[in-house]
């Protein structure tokens, strides 16, 4: 575990491994896991290899307990962050015996690639700070936002007959029908299941109405279950679904939220 005294990551203070309760997490201050990793490595106060991510997770749970409430927004943000940190750490770890099986990448190349990504992220972090300064400098300047007086307004309400071609509409629709290719996530080793996939799966179930989490992951492996849970958090965050669990380890019943229900119904009515 990190033995050095204070490890400050932005506003998150990780003081002492043994008193994890002192962890102050303010996830707003993280601008990304690369940022976090860069800070960690640069400070040399922690060797990422030695950092037990589980400890950080425990600390976070303690922190949640102390606050007495579960803020799903920041919980999801935390999961994303920790997942990314795990990924990065595993990149460092897999250079050994399992390397061939997992990735066809030399440790040197992996380090180089990781460094490149960290530097890019760092660069934009600098640019972001600069933008915030600019915004600060412009403080107090407001602009007028008023419509033109009626007598100066252009009249465009009378469209020219046949000025646009209907083919443009057909082409636009065809563009929307094209399925996007899978985004390369080569660096996250072997992707077996994606959040987008599970999102689509959950949405399909939601269209039918209420269902249980058990149903959603029937016969699935552990990774899929985890990713499905993550997709469910995402749906909750977007306000598309909510769930109930009447007792610990009981059935989780998932229902569509009002807005989405409206969509679903509108669709089935129109179809």
């Amino acid at each position, binding site marked *: 575990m990190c033995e050095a005294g204070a490890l400050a990551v932005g506003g998150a203070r990780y003081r002492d491994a043994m008193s994890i309760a002192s962890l102050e997490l303010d996830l707003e201050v993280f601008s990304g896991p690369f940022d976090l990793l860069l800070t960690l490595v640069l400070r040399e106060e922690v060797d990422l290899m030695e950092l037990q991510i589980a400890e950080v997770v425990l600390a976070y749970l303690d922190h949640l307990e102390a606050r007495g409430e579960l803020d799903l927004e920041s919980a999801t943000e935390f999961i994303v962050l920790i997942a990314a940190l795990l990924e990065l750490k595993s990149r460092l770890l897999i250079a050994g015996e399992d390397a061939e099986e997992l990735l066809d990448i030399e440790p040197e190349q992996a380090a180089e690639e990781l460094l490149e990504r960290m530097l890019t992220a760092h660069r934009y972090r600098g640019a972001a700070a600069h933008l915030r300064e600019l915004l600060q400098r412009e403080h107090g300047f*407001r*602009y*007028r*936002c*008023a*419509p*033109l*007086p009626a007598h*100066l*307004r*252009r009249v*465009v*309400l009378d*469209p*020219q*007959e*046949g*000025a*646009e*071609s*209907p*083919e*443009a*509409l*057909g*082409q*636009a*629709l*065809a*563009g*929307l*029908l*094209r*399925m*996007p290719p899978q985004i390369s996530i080569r660096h996250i080793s072997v992707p077996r299941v994606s*959040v*987008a996939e599970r*999102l*689509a799966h959950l*949405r399909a179930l939601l269209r039918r109405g209420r269902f249980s989490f058990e149903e959603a992951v029937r016969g699935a492996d552990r990774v899929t279950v985890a990713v499905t849970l993550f997709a469910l958090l*995402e*749906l909750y*965050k*977007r*306000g*598309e679904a909510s769930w109930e669990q009447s007792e610990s380890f009981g059935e989780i019943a998932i229902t569509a939220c*009002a*807005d989405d*229900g*409206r*969509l679903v*119904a*509108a*669709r089935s*009515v*129109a*179809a």
Partner: protein
Amino acid sequence: MAALARSIEALLFLSPDPVSISDLADATEAGEDAVTAALRLLEQELAPGRRGLRLKEVGGGHLLASAPEAEEAARRLFSRPRVATLTPAQAETLAIVADLQPISRPEIGRIRGVSADSATATLLERGLIEESGRSQFGATLYRTSTSFMKLFGLTSLKELPDLAQWDPSPEEQADLRERLLRAGEARGGGGPAGE
């Protein structure tokens, strides 16, 4: 110009609607008498022939307006014929409405993979789409208008070109709406949040 008159000028500049003396007094934390005096000062400052702006008293409040002498120039600047072509976002939204009408805004967003709010607003403003009742759950539905037919030189919606010639995967049998939604979800990782 005194500080209070400067503040008032700024407030009137920012407000598209007339601002009452009592609102100005509250905002500047000055008395109404002081505000009235400052308005008088501002009026002198903006007297005809002195500046490009005028102070007007309208409907129980004050307002800044451009000086009438500048009207000719304003007309030249703002009434230049602007080609009102459709942006890609507007074309997409219009195509979706044309094919799936009546349809709600959140569903258009789902299909596009991004919010359709601003495109829908512009199309409404240009009169190319119009409201067409509500879904049974209260979402506003949209359909294309007669202006739309005119702009595209159509006499009937049946004249819309057959999608088959551009269809990237013609072998697919599913319903158009279903297919569009599926592609939209794959693109956006889901619809726009909050809708």
